[in-house]
C-alpha cells in the first residue's frame, strides 16, 4: 500500500459538479481528500466550435456512453433495449464540463409537494402508485448552501425571480446579455400576463473568479469552455481545492467496489488504475458519480453486512427513479432572422407561472408543472432538422424551405416535474455488461397518466407562448420525451430507512461513514434544471461530514 493512501481521510468517487463542491469544502477545512476520477483531465485548448466533433461524435461523452449506457425498458418482464443516448462525461469536472450551466434553485413548494398537495387538493389528488414524499429538509434550510454555491462557481442572474423562495442576497453577477430572441419571448410572455425572467446561469456575464466573461460562441452544451468562462468545477472549485495541497486527484481511476467491514462500516474503495486493481482506504467515502452510477456502484458493493448492496436493507436502493419529461414546441416566424446560432443555451427566458403549484390544478388531473424556457444556441446540423411535418424532410422542396425559413425557426421547451412510481427503478441489467464485464444499470421507467396530462398541458402553454411571440405555424412531437440527463432518485434522502437509502444529510442509513452526492439523492424531480440543487445539497453534506468528523475519526 502506497504512502499517500495512508495519508488520506476521505475518498471521493467522481470529481464532477458535486464531488468538486465537497472537495472544496473539505480541503478548505483541513481534511485530506483523494478523488478517484474515471476520466482524464481536459484542457481549455481542446475545446472547439465543431458540431460534428461535439454533438455528432460526442467526443466528451462517447468514451463513457460507448460501453456503459444504461438499458431502458418500460415495464418489468420486458427485455431492455441496449441503447439510450445520455450525456455522462468521465473527466475531471464530470458532466458539468459540457453542461450549459443553467443554475436554478427549486421552488419552496418542491420540497413539500406531498403535504402541500394533500392540504390544497386532498389525498385523492395523488396517484395511487406514486411514491411522492416531502423532502426531509425545506427550502429555507438549503438557501444558505444555494448561496454559497452561487458565489463559489459564479452564477449570473436576476433577483428576486418571480415565484422564487426568499434569498438573503442577490446573484454575484448580473444576468447574461439578453439576445433579441430573449427579448422577443420575454415581451410575449408579459403580454400573456406571465412573469418571465432571464435564465440564471453559471456563466460569466462579466469577469469573475479570475476568468473572463462569456463571448457567446454558441458551442456551450456538448462542449467545454475554451475560455473557462463557465462555472464548471474544472475551472474553479477543483483548482481551489488542489491549491490547499490536500486534494489528490487520481485520473483514469475507475471505482469497482466500496469495501465494508463486518459491522457494515465502509473501509475504502477498490479501483482500477493502469490496468491493475488497487485499494484506497478511507475513514469516510463520498460517492459522487452520475445518478445511474451511484446506484450501480452501491448495488455492486454488497457484502454479508449489506446483502443486495450498500443501503439496500429495505429494498430502497434503485427505487424512486424518475427522469424529467420534456415537451418542446417549434415555431416559424416568417421573414424574421432570429439569429439563434449566436449565444448560449443558458442565455434564455424562463417562465415559472406553470411550475410547481403556481397555478390552480383543480380539475387538471395532474400535479406540479415545470419551467418553460426559450433559448439561443442552435447549430447548423440541428437547424437543418427543424422542419414542420408539412414539409418533406429531403429533396428540392426541403432545400427551398430551409433557404427561406431556416433562420426563422424558434423553439421553447418545458421540464415537467414527473412523479416517482412504485414500479419505476434502477437495477443491474442481467444481460448487458460494460467492457469490463460488469453489469450495466437497467432503467425501468414508464411515465403515468399524470405525466401525459402534464406534458400535454405544458405543450399548450409553450404553443401559446410562441404564437404570442409571432409564430404563424407551430409543430411538436406528441411522444412523452424522456430526458436522460435530468435523472433523479435511486438513493433518495429521507428520515425513515424503510422508504429511503440516505438520511436527511445524505449519509447511508446503515453505513454512516458513506454519503452520496448528486441527483440520485433527490426525493422529487422538481421543474427546473437540477445541477445547482445537487451542488447545494453536496455542500450541506460536506459540512455535515465536518461536523461528524471528530466522531468518525475516533471510530476508524
Amino acid at each position, binding site marked *: 500500500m502506497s504512502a499517500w493512501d495512508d495519508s488520506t481521510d476521505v475518498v471521493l468517487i467522481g470529481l464532477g459538479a458535486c464531488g468538486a463542491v465537497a472537495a472544496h469544502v473539505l480541503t478548505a477545512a483541513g481534511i485530506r481528500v483523494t478523488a478517484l476520477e474515471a476520466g482524464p483531465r481536459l*484542457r*481549455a*485548448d*481542446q475545446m*472547439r*466550435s*465543431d*458540431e*460534428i*466533433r461535439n454533438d*455528432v461524435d460526442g467526443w466528451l461523452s462517447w468514451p463513457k456512453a460507448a460501453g456503459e449506457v444504461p438499458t431502458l425498458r418500460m415495464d418489468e418482464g420486458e427485455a431492455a*433495449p441496449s441503447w439510450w443516448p445520455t450525456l455522462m462525461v468521465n473527466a475531471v469536472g464530470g458532466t458539468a464540463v459540457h453542461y450549459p450551466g443553467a443554475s436554478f434553485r427549486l421552488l419552496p413548494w418542491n420540497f413539500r409537494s406531498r403535504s402541500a398537495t394533500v392540504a390544497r387538493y386532498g389525498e385523492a389528488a395523488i396517484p395511487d402508485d406514486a411514491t411522492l414524499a416531502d423532502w426531509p429538509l425545506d427550502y429555507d434550510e438549503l438557501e444558505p448552501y444555494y448561496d454559497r454555491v452561487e458565489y463559489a462557481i459564479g452564477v449570473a442572474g436576476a433577483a428576486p425571480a418571480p415565484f422564487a423562495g426568499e434569498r438573503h442576497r442577490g446573484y454575484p453577477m448580473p444576468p447574461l*446579455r439578453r*439576445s*433579441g*430572441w430573449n*427579448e*422577443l419571448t420575454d415581451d410575449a410572455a408579459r403580454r400573456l400576463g406571465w412573469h418571465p425572467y432571464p435564465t440564471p446561469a453559471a456563466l460569466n456575464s462579466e469577469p469573475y473568479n479570475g476568468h473572463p466573461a462569456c*463571448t*457567446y*460562441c*454558441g*458551442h456551450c452544451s456538448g462542449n467545454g469552455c*475554451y*475560455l*473557462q468562462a463557465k462555472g464548471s468545477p474544472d475551472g474553479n472549485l477543483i483548482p481551489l481545492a488542489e491549491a490547499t495541497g490536500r486534494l489528490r486527484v487520481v485520473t483514469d481511476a475507475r471505482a469497482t467496489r466500496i469495501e465494508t467491514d463486518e459491522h457494515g462500516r465502509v473501509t475504502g474503495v477498490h479501483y482500477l488504475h493502469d490496468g491493475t486493481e488497487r485499494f484506497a482506504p478511507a475513514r469516510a467515502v463520498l460517492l459522487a458519480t452520475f445518478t445511474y452510477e451511484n446506484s450501480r456502484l452501491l448495488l455492486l458493493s454488497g457484502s454479508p453486512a449489506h446483502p443486495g448492496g450498500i443501503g439496500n436493507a429495505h429494498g430502497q436502493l434503485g427505487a424512486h427513479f424518475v427522469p424529467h419529461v420534456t415537451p418542446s414546441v417549434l415555431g416559424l416566424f416568417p421573414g*424574421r*432572422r*432570429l*439569429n439563434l*446560432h*449566436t*449565444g448560449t443555451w443558458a442565455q434564455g427566458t424562463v417562465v415559472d407561472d406553470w411550475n410547481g403549484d403556481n397555478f390552480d390544478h383543480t380539475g387538471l388531473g395532474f400535479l406540479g408543472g415545470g419551467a418553460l424556457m426559450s433559448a*439561443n444556441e442552435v447549430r*447548423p*446540423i440541428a*437547424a*437543418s*432538422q427543424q422542419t414542420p411535418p408539412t414539409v418533406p*424532410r*429531403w*429533396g*428540392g422542396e426541403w*432545400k*427551398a424551405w*430551409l*433557404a427561406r425559413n*431556416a*433562420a426563422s425557426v424558434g423553439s421553447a421547451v418545458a421540464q415537467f416535474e414527473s412523479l416517482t412510481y412504485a414500479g419505476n427503478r434502477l437495477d443491474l441489467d442481467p444481460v448487458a455488461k460494460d467492457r469490463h464485464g460488469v453489469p450495466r444499470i437497467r432503467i425501468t421507467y414508464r411515465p403515468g397518466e399524470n405525466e401525459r396530462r402534464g406534458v400535454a398541458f405544458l405543450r399548450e402553454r409553450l404553443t401559446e407562448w410562441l404564437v404570442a411571440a409571432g409564430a404563424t405555424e407551430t409543430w411538436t412531437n406528441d*411522444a412523452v420525451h424522456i430526458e436522460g440527463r435530468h435523472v433523479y432518485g435511486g438513493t433518495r434522502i429521507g428520515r425513515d430507512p424503510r422508504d429511503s437509502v440516505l438520511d436527511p444529510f445524505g449519509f447511508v442509513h446503515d453505513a454512516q461513514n458513506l454519503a452520496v452526492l448528486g441527483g440520485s439523492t433527490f426525493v422529487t424531480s422538481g421543474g427546473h434544471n437540477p445541477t445547482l440543487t445537487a451542488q447545494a445539497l453536496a455542500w450541506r453534506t460536506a459540512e455535515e461530514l465536518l461536523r461528524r468528523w471528530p466522531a468518525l475519526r475516533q471510530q476508524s
Partner: protein
Amino acid sequence: MTEGSPRRRSERLAQTLAAMLDRLIPADAQGPGAVDAGVLDYVMSRYAGPGHDEAGRYARGLEHLDDLARRRHGTGFAASPAAAQDALLAELEAEALALPEAQRASSFFETVLRHAREGMFGDPVHGGNRGYAGWDLLGYPDARRVWTAREQALDVVTRPVLRLRPATPEPTEVGPR
C-alpha cells in the same frame, strides 16, 4: 442481383450512394447538391467506406435499393430517372417511419439521411459542406467564438468573417489551463 468482381460491385454501390445522396440533397436553384458539396466524400470517409463499422450496413442497404430499382424499372438506381429515384426513396422513408421509434433511427434510410445532413451542414474540416454550400443554404455564417450584442439582435444579417479554415482540425491556443 450482385454481379461482377468485388471492385465492380463496390464501384456500383458508390454510384448508388452518390445518386441517393444527390436526390436527398439535389443540385438546384438553391445551390449545389450533395456530391458537389462533398457529402459523398464525408459519408465514405466516416461511415460507408472500407473498414468502418457501418460499411456492411451501407453495402446491404445500397444493394437492396439497387435491386428494388432493377425490379421496378429494369435498371440500377443510379441509372433510373430522378422521379423514379425519388419514388423509391419515398418508399424507403415510409418503411422507416413505420418502424417503432426505438428502431427508426438505425434504419438504412434514416441513417443515410442523418449522415447526409451532417456532411452538408457540419464543419468543412470534416470534408463535407464544401464551399460552405450547406451553411449558405441556412444563412449560417461561421463558427466564430465571439458574437456581439448587435449580432445577437433580431433581423440582423450576420455575415461570414471566419471562413478560411485549415484543412485539418488544429487546437486553438488560448494559453495553459
